[in-house]
């Protein structure tokens, strides 16, 4: 066990746990931030995507000991009221079906658009390719990212 001082969604927080614990489970089990989802545990599906200093990162394989001073942002920290342009675009296109993968999709899209504010359709597809959606909402995800890129 070890103590870690984390910066999660702009708030300082302290946890005392096994240094190997993936950030996914720190968020879900210790900090009750359950918007970040468990899908595969091997960084294949993207449901657990968070931002580490703004960079989209799979939290299921990221040990808490590796976070250091980097700021963690989760879906809960993206906006106060769901009014981030990407969230608004998601609502406009009514993207979700079951909704389980969508937090991860949104976190990937936000980080991507920060680096590439005016992407081509092909760049959007490639950027979003790591996030599985079992319901098959891929076309709406694409459209929502495009809309967000225009706002």
């Amino acid at each position: 066990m070890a103590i870690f001082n984390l910066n999660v969604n702009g708030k300082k927080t302290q946890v005392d746990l096994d240094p190997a614990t993936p950030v996914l489970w720190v968020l879900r089990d210790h900090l009750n931030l359950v918007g970040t989802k468990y899908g595969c545990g091997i960084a294949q599906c993207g449901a657990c995507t968070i931002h580490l200093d703004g960079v989209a990162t799979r939290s299921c394989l990221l040990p808490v000991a590796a976070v250091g001073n980097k700021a963690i942002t989760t879906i809960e920290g993206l906006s106060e009221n769901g009014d981030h342009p990407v969230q608004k675009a998601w609502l406009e296109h009514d993207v979700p079906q079951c909704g389980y993968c969508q937090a991860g999709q949104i976190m990937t899209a936000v980080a991507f658009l920060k680096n590439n504010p005016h992407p081509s359709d092909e760049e959007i597809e490639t950027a979003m390719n790591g996030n599985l959606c079992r319901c098959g909402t891929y076309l709406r995800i694409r459209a929502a990212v495009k809309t967000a890129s225009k706002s």
Partner: protein
Amino acid sequence: MTTVKTTINRRSFIKVTSLAGGGMMLSFNWLAGCKPTSQEILALPKEWFELNSYIKIGENGAVTLMSPNPEFGSNVKTSMPMILAEELDIDWKNVRVEQADFFPERFERQFTGGSQAIRQGWKILRTAGATARQMMIRAAAQTWNVPVEEITTEAGTLQHLPSGKKAGYGELASLAATLPVPEEVPLKKVKDFKIIGTSRKNVDGLKIVTGKPMFSLDHTQDGMLVAMIAHPPAFGMKVKSVDDTAARAMPGIKDVFTIKTLADEYERNGFDTTSFTELVVVAGNTTWEVMNAKKALVIEWEKISDSHIVVNGWGGKQTVRIPAGLESTAGHKAQMAEMAKKPGKVLRKDGDPEAAFKRAAKVIERTYSAPYLAHNTMEPVNCFARVTDEHAEIYGPIQAPESIMQTLVARLGMPKEKIHIKLARMGGGFGQRAYGHHMVEAAVISQKLKAPVKLVYTREDDMTYGIYRPTYTATYRAALDEKNQLLAFHVKAGGIPETPIHPNRFPAGAIDHYLAESWSIESNITIGAFRAPRSNFMAGAEQSFLDELAEELGKDPIEFRLELLDRAKTNPVGENNDYDPDRYAGVLKLVREKSKWQEPQPNIHRGVSAYFCHNSYVAEVLDLVIQNKNPVIQKVYAAVDCGIVVNPDAAANMGEGGIVDGIGNALYGEMTFQDGVPQKTNFDTYRMIRQVEAPKSIEIHFVENETDPTGLGEPLFPPVFAALSNALYKATQKRFYEQPFISGLDQGFAD
């Protein structure tokens, strides 16, 4: 105006006074952490007045509508309340939607699956809405002392034109709630619909995009333990012994034990699992700790012996043999090839097919096959349970709560009144979540631990637990006469452990000499419903064969199907043909028009397919191009006749999903076995369709009619398998008989 007797919906009018006002029996704080959605324009009222199980109206005019069925992504939580709101005649923006608990004394048919939620809920929900509206009207008539017939409603307002009196529903709700339930109520005409047929956003959209807790996997409670299970690594194996010394010593671990989830002599219902019922359980404080301790278990497994289980499912009560043995995919393929050669069980015979095949100038025979599929919902199996001596609370993803209630009653030895099932939003269902074994497991674990428990499957546990889509094979034969006319048609299909065939479906009824046969092979690998069961294979096989047949006959594939449908309409062969040839032809004609089928484009390879299942008709055209030696799906056109569409944009979303899902499973979906061990355990080996592989665009056209709604969640899925294989043929000049098609694409294409 049609009227409907309220007796069809009697249970929704039974007042359960202890619950009036919206109090829930459970200890969950259901609204914790939820911000109001944009729909909630009106503030929460001081008091709710319950008109029936589905509808509560506040004194300020706010309306709560209960969504009865479990939500797994088909958006019933929006569309079912839309039906209530339509007949109640209220403004959608004043509606709050709540997920109903499983409560069969108050709600009818709380089952989501088989594309039946809207179809079966249609009349019930309309009646509930219309009855509440009548009670509002009667309250106004009584208050204003005017005839009932003179009162009109609009968007939550009552009006008496002759006197100019007007009131909101909220003002009269307290009186309306005390009035007797009218025996007969009028329903709206379809042309007067204001909400049904208009697109309304997902009522949970904001919660989803802000990451609010919505799934049972997100649930937590004071004192809650996390539990994981270890099930046998292979079908055909069971637990022999467990050494838990190392696991028990690991940090955060509370207990390790073995459970039996169903008694050996237990008579299973249709949605009870036939997978592993003896499991090793590790329970502890946190998911990560339990996950690690599970890896430290030392379990010795042993082979099972032959056994029998009794299943009282849809086909009535039957004894099913579970054979011993460690099965492999190679062995399955050999067994299926063997069975396909033998005569099957005749399910339908028209004319004299044997004689027709004997005198045929030419016989075309093709065999199609498909592997087992895993559902792979994004949310792994999980369930929360708190079971005490007095009461059981179960909160988890479940499509068929009624079935699992029976199992819980039997296993926990508690009357159903003491068992409360709360319906979690499901992170996907696809049929897998009809099987509620996880609810029994969580309940048994909680009972044993005397603590609230959240059972969590790892992805690997989920993917290797079974309940797969079966593996199937179908052999089609067509007899042609010397004039190259279709003389006879023969389909023989089987699988492990069930046949996929629907003997009375198209093209039965359109051909004089027709034979349908089935076969099946026993297995200990467990199967279950998977989006459009059986149709999800047969559509691909049949519609690929018809494509090849049309080519052989020198006919346009759409024209060929239309000719057959015309025959089935004007001079049908046999009886019990289970489709309407007009509606079938209607979607083919619509997709032909919308896709501009008769104007082929250079370098675009097109395939067409049409299928009827779950009471709906769908025709699809798929366009692909070859880029960098790979097929790229440019566009899919779908024409859909599913009757009235309640929420068109959401319906299109689900249709798009069905098409993407179908393409994904056709190209990549496959579970294989070696010595009983599932060979794919996670998304690194089980290939799922991804963003870049999805079609560039999808266009869905709904046939406009006034037919009551039929299925939608499944019918777009099966036909796309063949639209794809037929387009791949155009691109490669090679027919695709074996799924997943990717196995036939490894050489790539010429550009």
